[in-house]
């Protein structure tokens, strides 16, 4: 694993070179906050950001995405046939993705890239994308990545990890994809120093914690039936903010839209917070109340996922849901409640 030194003065040239080969995405400031956007017309990523409002998951999993199109127009030679949308496989690179968001993409991958089923839309975009991470030296107060199986210098899901060293960046090449990008940018000065010191400093700055140690062994039904859910879910207004800003939420809804004789099938982000998410065609809704829905969100992230994949929780500690929830429902608090309940080690049948 090579570490390369990039002088900040060289950065702009590298950008120019990259823009010839890659479609670039990066954090840019819009009015009041940062978001990941396509960098067009030579625009540079603004790496002074702390965290973006929305996660960069939309780069590989757009909020709305066409799946295929069709026409019922008999005059057309393609009448009544499904036409796949052109594959989006031009090379893309995300500059400045945070390690937590990159780790989130590798968690989401467990869902979209399995033995039995491979989601072509997600995988096309994922495979075409090189992830250039930016280590996090000034984490937010609401960040709890180090206890969520992640960290400010975490490398999982990244092709390159950049670390800001005031006048230059240190870039750690993590994969072949990453090496290819470094070559295309023309960055090749070997560095003498490593990233370790700054990594330790950054990790020590993260004070917020999430407690999850008892969850994997806990009895699922006992957690499900725990009596704190009514209190914990009371404030929830069942908007989709937490799920839409979350880098690890992957649910979507499939919709057909028809315009005159042409139609398309698309998929849009959906949210387990919405009542309509689980309504059956009979009209019956198995998750009828907000208690059901709030419980589902946290049980999925902190229990079902943990048990199914044995890869820890489905949360990377980015803190977005904590800071954006309009009614201050805090995953750290809920996890604490769940973990405490789990420590009692009761199982539902004994209750």
């Amino acid at each position, binding site marked *: 694993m090579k570490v390369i030194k990039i002088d900040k003065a060289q950065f702009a040239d590298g950008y120019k070179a990259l823009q010839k080969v890659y479609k670039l995405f990066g954090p840019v400031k*819009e*009015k*009041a*906050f940062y978001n990941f956007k396509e960098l067009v017309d030579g625009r540079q990523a603004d790496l002074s950001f*702390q965290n973006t*409002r*929305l996660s960069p998951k939309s780069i590989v999993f757009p*909020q*709305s995405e066409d799946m295929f199109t069709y026409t019922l127009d008999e005059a057309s030679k393609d009448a009544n046939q499904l036409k796949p949308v052109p594959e989006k496989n031009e090379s893309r690179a995300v500059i400045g993705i945070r390690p937590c968001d990159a780790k989130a993409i590798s968690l989401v991958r467990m869902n979209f890239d399995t033995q039995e089923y491979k989601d072509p839309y997600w995988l096309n975009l994922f495979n075409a994308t090189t992830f250039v991470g930016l280590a996090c030296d*000034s984490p*937010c*107060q*609401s960040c709890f990545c180090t206890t969520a199986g992640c960290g400010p210098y975490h490398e999982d899901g990244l092709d390159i990890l950049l670390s800001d060293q005031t006048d230059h960046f240190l870039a750690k090449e993590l994969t072949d994809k990453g090496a290819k990008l470094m070559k295309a940018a023309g960055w090749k000065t070997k560095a003498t120093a490593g990233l370790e010191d700054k990594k330790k400093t950054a990790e020590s700055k993260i004070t917020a914690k999430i407690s999850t140690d008892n969850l994997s062994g806990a009895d699922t039904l006992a957690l499900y039936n725990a009596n704190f859910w009514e*209190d914990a879910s*009371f*404030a929830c*207004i*069942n*908007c*989709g*903010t937490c*799920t*839409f*800003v979350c880098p690890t939420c992957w649910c979507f*809804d499939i*919709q057909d*839209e028809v315009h005159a004789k042409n139609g398309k099938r*698309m998929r*849009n982000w959906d*949210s387990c917070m*919405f*009542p*309509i998410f689980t309504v059956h065609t009979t009209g019956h809704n198995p998750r009828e109340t907000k208690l059901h829905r709030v419980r589902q969100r946290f049980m999925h992230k902190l229990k079902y996922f943990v048990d199914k994949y044995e890869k820890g929780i489905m949360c990377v500690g980015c803190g977005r849901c*904590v*800071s*954006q*929830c*309009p*009614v*201050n*429902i*805090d995953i*750290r*608090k809920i996890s604490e409640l769940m973990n405490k309940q789990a420590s009692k080690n009761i199982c539902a049948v004994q209750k």
Partner: protein
Amino acid sequence: MITYSNKIKEIAKRLLKECRAEMVIGFRKGSIPMMNEPCFVRTDEQADDLVWDSHCGINLANYLTSRDEKIAIVAKGCDSRNIVNHIVENKINREQLYIIGVPCQGMVDKRKILAQTEGEVLQITETENGQITVKSANGEKTFSKSDVIQQNCSVCIQPNPVLYDEMVADPVQGQTDIDQFADVRALEAMSTEEKRAYFDELLAPCIRCYACRNACPLCYCPTCFVDESKPQWLGKSQDIMDIKTFHFLRAYHCAGRCTDCGACERACPVGINMRILTKKLNKDCLDLYDWQAGMSIDKRPALDVYQTNDPEKFIK
């Protein structure tokens, strides 16, 4: 503010003890700066969690819809107007409620503080004389509260509850001679093209999380028109026309009912001021019918009644 909190705790405990209420709905201290969490308490011990400060902007009337318990609820001016709406619209009975009135001095706009603070906000404190001190990663800064309250609070005409059983303090001085609708008039004065461009830009960041709709106490339909699938009124994608249709139609559903409590704008994760739409309708209701929503449980809403002097200039 501490006196408010203490008084609220005291009243809550008394009501629970006397069985006047099964639960008390209020706020408890949030886990991050400038946020409090709506909660309910049923016991003495829980009642100690109740707080009141300048971060209680969420409208608690939202939590009353179709509940059947006897409830005591903490209510500032706008909350009380929405409670009136709920009573008028048969979403809760007056007899079920014990309203703990809070004279409101305005709610802090989190966005205004964040926009004017360098570095992450770590702590925020308020003094009795209206000074707000923000401790951030980069130092300390003091604001005058009137500069950082929500825009709807700065044009609020009803800071004191219109309906209550008990007040936690003496009423505050209401504002007179304020221009509630300067922003609406500025928009009205634009050309058709400019108006379109204004809304294109305003609504572009929308992610359709529906936080505005769900934070609103008026939006209690079991199935919202955007969720309806038989027939489906609206596409669900990020197509800008669908986004606009959602916002415009949502506003229409609030005509003659909106109290401009600001919950929608406050809840929005991407900072859209969708209040401009409901404010336009509020302005029209005031101009055309001399109507402001939620001021009295004895009056039927403007769009609910016919009067012979209703303006009909729009009919040819």
